[in-house]
């Protein structure tokens, strides 16, 4: 049977990551025991002390809202986990690493070839694709290890990505309603991951940032 404290903790840890929830449980349990001991040493019975200690914690939903602002949620932990897995998979496999580095260069050479052969539109689309692939695939290998350098890089990355996308498909028809669904569906996963990373950067001290948070 759940105690009052268990119910409080269940609400307060809702949507938090497993590690964050464990941290909350530990610190609130410690706090609760101290409050309970203080109440009992003041003459309260065990039941009264339990109630006083839980009441002093306040509203669990309000605490949950505040915890979600400062501790990692399960969705944020998922983004970190996937990013770390991808980085680990690339770094542990030299052929994959070199393939990812060579692919954008190959696409850029192909683009130059098309332009020289007179296929300007194909060359333009491939060049944009090469820039986009370069930004996505080669960034983990760039020497970006400070928050200020990372901010500049991220700004340039988004300007270059949007610019390349617009250039490849021509802004005039890309921005019409007919193709906006394509733009939205292409950019949504990137935008969502970036938004989640902004939130994680606010929560984690810089010293604990994995490489993916700099990019």
């Amino acid at each position, binding site marked *: 049977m759940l105690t009052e404290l268990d119910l*409080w903790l269940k609400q*307060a840890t809702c949507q938090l990551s497993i590690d964050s929830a464990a941290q*909350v449980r*530990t*610190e*609130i349990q*410690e*706090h609760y*025991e*101290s*409050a309970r001991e*203080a109440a009992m040493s003041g003459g309260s019975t065990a039941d009264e002390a339990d109630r006083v200690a839980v009441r*002093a*914690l*306040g*509203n*669990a939903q*309000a*605490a949950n809202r*505040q*915890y979600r*602002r*400062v*501790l990692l949620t399960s969705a944020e932990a998922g983004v970190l986990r996937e990013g770390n897995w991808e980085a680990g998979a690339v770094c542990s496999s030299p052929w994959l690493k070199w393939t990812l580095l060579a692919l954008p260069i190959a696409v850029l050479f192909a683009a130059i070839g098309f332009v020289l052969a007179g296929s300007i539109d194909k060359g333009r689309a491939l060049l944009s694709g090469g820039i986009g692939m370069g930004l996505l695939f080669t960034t983990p290998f760039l020497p970006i290890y400070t928050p200020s350098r990372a901010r500049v890089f991220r700004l340039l990355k988004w300007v270059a990505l949007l610019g390349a996308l617009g250039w490849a498909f021509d802004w005039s028809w890309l921005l019409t309603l007919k193709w906006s669904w394509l733009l939205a569906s292409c950019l949504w996963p990137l935008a969502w991951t970036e938004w989640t990373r902004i939130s994680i950067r*606010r*929560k*984690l*001290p810089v010293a604990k940032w994995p490489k993916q948070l700099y990019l």
Partner: protein
Amino acid sequence: MNFRGTLPTLILEALEHEPSHGYLIAQRIKKRSQGVLDFKEGTLYPALHKLESEGQVESFEGVEKGRPRRYYRITASGHGALTKDRAEWRALSRAVTLILGEA
């Protein structure tokens, strides 16, 4: 009493002279305000985590009555923030007193 926004400063003040754990910090704030600042203790830890991620406090494992406890201590950056908050609070308090009159 509602003292929204001042909790981080009160936490830094409570940690100014010695490290402490969450329960003691809460009791210290309540005692020093003579019970006027009676906040919900569940909101203390999110504020402590925010201060920690900003580098104003740091935590370490300690032991109290044979039980492991997480203690917090103020950092140099926290001391700087506390000094700045104190000066701002004195200026604000002086200005409001000028308008509302001495209590």
